[in-house]
Structure formats: C-alpha cells, structure tokens
C-alpha cells in the first residue's frame, strides 16, 4: 500500500515537473534602439528636458498591426535616446519635441510631410533624426558669479527654422538654476533663484539675435555647486522649451 502511494506521488511529481517546463511566454525584449535628435543647421543634438515635456521617440510596430497603438520612450535632456528593452520587430520611428514635426499635417488633416524612418530591428539600431528646432539658444558667455554671489549669464537666441508655420512669437525666456546635472529645465528647477520671464506680443521676439543678459533672482545663491540652463519657447505644438546646454559652475 505504501509502495503504491510512493509510486503515485512520484508520477505526480514527474507530471507536475514536466508541465512546468512548458512556459507559454515570449523571451524578454532585448533589442536596442539608440540615436539622437540633431539640429540639421548646426549638427548639435537638440537639447530638451526629461519627462513628459521633452523630446520623445514614437515607435509604431508595423509588423504587428497596420494600425498599432504607439509606444513611446523619452529622450535624455541632451537630445540622445537609448532603449535597450525593445522587441525585435519592424518599426516606424519618429521623434516628437520642440522642433518642426517629423509628421506634419495641414489644417484639414492632410499629411504634408512625413520623414519617419522604418527599421527592421534585430539586435541594435542607431536612428538619428535631423530636425529644425524652433529656437537655438547659445551661450555668449558662460555663467559667472557676481560680487553678491548671484550669477549672470549671456545667451543669444535665434530661430532654427524658416518654416513659415513655426515663426510664432517667443513667449518665455527662462534661466533655470538647479543642483541636478542631468535634470535641469522647466520640469525641475530651484524657484528661489531661477529667473522666469514671460513676454506678450512681439517683445520677446524682438530679442532674437541679440545678446540677452539674465541674472539669477533672490540674491546670493546657496553655497552649492549649481547648474544653469536657459530655456525659451514659442507658442507652437505643445509649447515645449528649447534649451541651451546645461552648464555647471563651482561655488567660489
């Protein structure tokens, strides 16, 4: 009787063990999409902010469906992106951010330009997009500490596109101060010192091409290493900001 019990138990274990082997699942995604958004005028990457208010990559998995639900991932703030957990498949890829859209429609919904890229992703693909940013923000002089431990910067803002649909007035020019090197922008800044300026009408636009001097607000900065970035935007698309590079400075 006891023997019979053990045999039965053994059979059960074997059956159970076998069924466990049959895992009905796909392998984890392991392919990589990497690349950057590049200003076609200067060859530099287009600076952005991290999180929902910055550049993101759109993947349409066309090998799965002719009308797929898009998948998105965010760019880093320097305008590069890297996703190492993507399924191998055929994708139609584009980027969305503070630049002339890759896919443009007119006022009736007709697609008038589409420079999306289609790739067959196997292991790794590098995809670079050449775009026209709404605005270019360049340092004229790097941040310097003043006698009262506030900081002054100088920048020059120019348009990055001649496209007539994206010549709106500049609405904001902001100097962002942050203690975080890789996350400094409209989504994350120190409100005590950052200098935010909004413009009505064409007053902001009149500053295009000129040297703009901005000083931090709120007096002496706290004695920490800080990072500075200037962001500006026009009222186009989702009103995202274009940025200068992020520049750190040692507290004197």
């Amino acid at each position, binding site marked *: 009787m006891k023997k019979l019990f053990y045999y039965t138990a053994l059979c059960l274990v074997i059956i159970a063990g076998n069924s466990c082997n049959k895992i009905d699942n796909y392998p984890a995604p392991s392919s990589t999409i990497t690349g950057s958004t590049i200003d076609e005028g200067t060859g530099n990457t287009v600076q952005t902010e991290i999180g*929902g*208010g910055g550049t993101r990559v759109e993947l349409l998995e066309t090998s799965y*469906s002719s*009308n797929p*639900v*898009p998948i998105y991932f965010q760019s880093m703030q320097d305008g590069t992106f890297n996703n190492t957990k993507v399924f191998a498949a055929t994708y139609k890829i584009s980027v*969305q951010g503070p630049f002339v859209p890759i896919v443009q*429609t007119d*006022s*009736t*919904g*007709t697609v008038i330009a589409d420079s999306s890229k289609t790739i067959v992703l196997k292991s790794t693909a590098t995809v670079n997009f050449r775009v026209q940013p709404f605005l270019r923000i360049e340092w004229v002089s790097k941040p310097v500490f003043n006698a009262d431990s506030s900081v002054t910067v100088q920048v020059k803002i120019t348009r990055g596109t001649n496209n007539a649909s994206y010549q709106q007035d500049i609405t*904001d020019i*902001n100097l962002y101060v942050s203690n975080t090197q890789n996350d400094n922008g*409209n989504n994350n800044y120190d*409100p*005590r010192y*950052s200098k*935010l300026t*909004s413009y009505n009408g064409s007053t902001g636009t009149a500053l295009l091409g000129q040297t703009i001097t901005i000083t931090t*607000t*709120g*007096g002496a900065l706290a004695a920490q290493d800080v990072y500075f970035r200037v962001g500006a935007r026009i*009222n186009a698309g*989702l*009103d995202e900001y274009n940025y200068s590079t992020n520049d750190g400075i040692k507290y004197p």
Partner: protein
Amino acid sequence: MKRYNYILLTALIVCVTACRKLDIPPKNIIQDPEVFSNSAGIQAYMARLYSELPIEDFRYSPARGLNYFWIISPTPATTGEALSRDQTSSMQENFGGWSWDIWGGSYTVIHDCDYFIQTLPSYASNFTTAQVNAWLGEAYFVRGMTYFGLVKRFGGVPIVNKTLNYVVGTSTDELKVPRSSEKAVWDQVASDFDFAIANLPAVNTDYADGSRANKYVAAAFESRAMLYAGTIAKYNTTTLFDASKNELCGMPASDAAAYFLKSYNAAVMLDGVYSLYLSAWSATDKTAQYQNFVNLFSDAASKENIFVREYQYPNSVHGYDAYNVPRQLIGPNGYSSEVNPTLNFVEMFGGIPKNADGTIQNLDGSGHYNLYTNTMDLFANVEPRLRATVILPGDAFKGENIEIRRGIYTGSSTGGISPLLPAGSRSQYPTTNLVTSSTATQTPYTLPGGALMNPAGLSGIFTGDQTCAISGFSIRKWLNPNLATSQVLENNETQTWIEMRYAEVLLNRAEAAYELYSAGQSGTTDYVTDAYNDINQIRSRAGATLLASPGSMTIDSIRIERRKELAFENKTYWDLKRWRTFAKEQNGTIYRILMPFYSVQAGKYFFDARTDERNDIYTYDPRWYYEQIPGGAISKSTNLIQNPGY
C-alpha cells in the same frame, strides 16, 4: 415490462412539463415591464441616471474624481483660487486613480440613456403623452450632460446613440467605435439639449425643486456647453486628426461665432423665468449685500437655483465643512482649512487699497508698512461679495472673530517698519525680531502692558503645521454658519450643491455676447450693451462698483467677473481650460499670500504681501487641455487614438 414503460412515460411527461415551467423570466432580475410600466419604475431608473450625472460637486476633486467622499486636494487649489496643504502643484485629472472610471462610467450612463430612449416608447400606452415626452427629454438631457462631460475633457469621443448588442462568439470589431470629431461631439451635446428643451415642460412634474431637469435647465446647460465650444473653437491651438481627417482635437475657428450665438440664445430663454437672489439685499446697505450673498447658497426657495444636487443623510452625504472650516472651529474629525484663498484671488476684488499694478497696497509712500488697529481695517470698504466668499483675517464667522496672524514683530517701529524681506524675495522670514508658533499649541507672548498674546492667530499661521490659513485667508463660501462644531464631520453633511444658478447664465450670456461683438457680429440686440447690462446686474448684487460704460469693457472684465462670482464652485478649472489661459497663468507661478503681523512697539497690525512661503510652483502642461484617454479604454478598443503628447 409494461410497468417500466409507464414509469418512463410518467417521467417523460413530468420532465417535459417541468422544462416548460422552468423557462420563465428570472424572478430575481427586474425586467423591462416592471421598470417601464409604472412611474415608480421610471423614477428608480431616473434616480440612477441623475446620480451618475458628471457634476463637479462637493464630492469632486481632480485628484480623486467624481462621487468620492474624501476632498483633501480640493479643486480650487489647482486653479490659483486657493492654496492647500495637500495640493501643491498644477494637475490634470487623475482618471487612473482611486475608483474613478471616467470612460467606462460615462459610456455606461450613455448606454442607460440609449436603452431608456429605445424602450420607453413601447410602453407609452401606460402613460400620458406629456409624461413620455418629459421623461424622454430627461434621458436626452442626461445623455447630453454625459457627452459634455467627455468632450470637455477629451475632445472628440465615440458617439454611441444606440445600444450595442454583442453576440458571444462574434467579432468585437463592431463594438470598437472610433472617436468622432470634436465638433461632432459638441454638436451632439447641442442636439441632445435641443431635444430636451423641446420636450421637457417648464416645470418638472415629478420634482419641481430643481433636482430634476426642466426645459430651462436644459437651456442653461446648453448655454454653458456652447460657450465652452465657442471658446475652444476660438482659442485652441492643439490639433489632432485621424486617418480619415476627422479633427479629433480642435475645431475650425470659423465655427466659433455659431456656437457663441447658440450659447447666447439659450441663455436668453431663461430671461424672466429665473432671477438673481435678492431676498436680503439692499442697495444702500453693504452688510445686507454681504448677508444676501451668504444666504444665496443655502436658501432652498431661491429663484436663482436652476439645477441642484441634493444630499440626504445617511445615504448620500459630503463633508465640505469638515474639510474647510477655519482652524479655530475644527470639527471632531480633525480636518480644517483645506481651502485657503490666495492673495491673487482676493486682489481681483474692489474696495481694497491697491497699487498701480493692481496689487494690494500695504506700504506707505516711504516704503514702510501701513499700520492698522484691527486686521479688518484694511478691508473696511471691501466689496461685500468678497467677505461672503473669503474669510478675511479678523472677520466674524459662527460668532467668533477668525484670528489669522503670522507672528508678533518685536523690532522697532520708530520712523516706520521697513519690509521684513526685499520686494519679490522668496526666502523665509528672518527669525530676528519675530515671535512665531510652529503649531496650534502656543506659548503666549507677554506684551509690554502685561497682557498675553499668542504669537499666531487661533486659525494660524503656524510655521510647522499647515492645518491653518496658510495664505492668510480662509474659505467662506458654502460653509454652513448654523452647523454645530460637533456636527462638523466627514460624511455627515447634506447641504445642497447648486450646479447651475442664474448668475452663471447671465455670465454665459455676457461672455457669448461680447465674443459675438468682438467678432463683428450684430443681431437684433446690441451685443456689447447686452453684455454690459448682464455684468452690471451681477456687480450690483455683489455690491461692487458698476462698470462705467459698455466701451470700458474688455473680454477680461467679463472673465474676471465670472471668476469672482463663480469662485470655489469648481467652475474656474474649466474656464481656464477652455480659455486656454491655464498654461499662461500657471507658468512657473508661485501664488501670493498676505501675512498679518502684530507690532508690539506700535501696538498695531501690518501686512506683508509675498509669494507662498512653501515655494510651491504651479506649471500647467499645455497637453492637459486635452486629457489622456485612459490606457485601459484603448486596450479594449484599439481604434481609439490617444490625444497628443501622451
């Protein structure tokens, strides 16, 4: 053997008969005839439809959605009307969280309306034609309200005007209704309301107290909806098209005028039917004007109430007072002061000394603080409506003076007191010469005469504890002055929510008229004069100075009037959205507060105006003008296209 045959035969007969008798409608499920054959059944059906109406009432907040009891991230703290310790930034509505299924919930209501509309006619013989028409009108009204609730959030949504019947085992493609254009949905809202207006009686015969719709209720909501549609057509800049070129987000600007005209015409329908509440009002008495505006929110007989939501203990309750009473009147649950009006809001009102830029004047010509014997002296001539909306520092409520004080200033007052901080500074107050309190448990300070004074007022401001008037003000509107403190409890209140009152209809009419006027439209009436008269009716009742002339108006004077009149009624959130000014107003914004201090040496009070001490930044993301369609809805119906930027 024969016997067996008989048994078999008997068994067969029994079984077959039994089978027949089993095939009856289930007794535990209420069937259509029970519901649609008598007015009690119809009332039960209506009760559910009305309870699901998407109204942003006492039980709504963007953080937790509709019909949720816990309101500690209140709507006004997302719009700049107020600051709250539990809401510290701009936000979009949180559909994923808590129990709020905006998408599925709305389509359940739309289904229930469709079912009612399809089914009632076959039972019409049980009722009079007038009854049938009125109930159909109500179903269209509820459906229009539900589409309105969807389109103001998402833009174009699927239009489903008949019940979908899924047969198990067949394809689900037919159920995956794609989004219609935004314009089509606004037009659907208009046509549902138009049907309701045409079929509802002037007075609802089932309930005439404003809790069920009548012809004018539908017209009032049509005026609101069409005003939203007109402003979105005019001011929106976000667009989204599907592959068939349906404009899912955005509408042609050329359609704006037609919507404004519909809004205007709907508002005019209420002329002479409803009126502004003036029961306790007097043209010459500011106190009467104040009391009248207070009473407006609790007088069930008010002719201003057009559509209300009633509550009943213990089935349907809220806790508005519990969350919002000033700190010194805290109820047994321990909540208080969730809504603290900002100085930005208070500065919209007249009767306050102001600088040239519209900010409050708290300094004298030489840059020193103005001194006051009582904190209310600064507000001696304030517009009565403000006192009825906001508890100002030192004003009376429930028989107490609501004491709001940031601290005691012990420094010299000789030659005037200079500002504690440089203008525009966002730093903390200096600790020298200031006595403050971190909590409501205070150590009294001995004044020179020997009298004792708490560093902070009884209702704040406490530096380490935000259960107080953190902005220097506390909310007054909707608070029930007759509710005993022991009854200031969550889930205990039944004060009626007024969703639509005549003042809003006048404001809709004024805004639509002014937009028509600015678009160069002219009708049988002079639109700008009409707008001017509407606004002055509101201002006169409020005790504000009247506008000088139609020519002195701008669209901003109409908008600010609307924000003042409808403040803390969960309307400003939608106004800022449809004007597309949310992202401009909340653009790295830190709201302003007004801090009263007592100077020991002067023996008087002074006020410091500054930005929120917590440095909470409000930045509204322009994507939020069109909310994110819940991911679950798209997974189930893959034809749905997500809104831009999500």
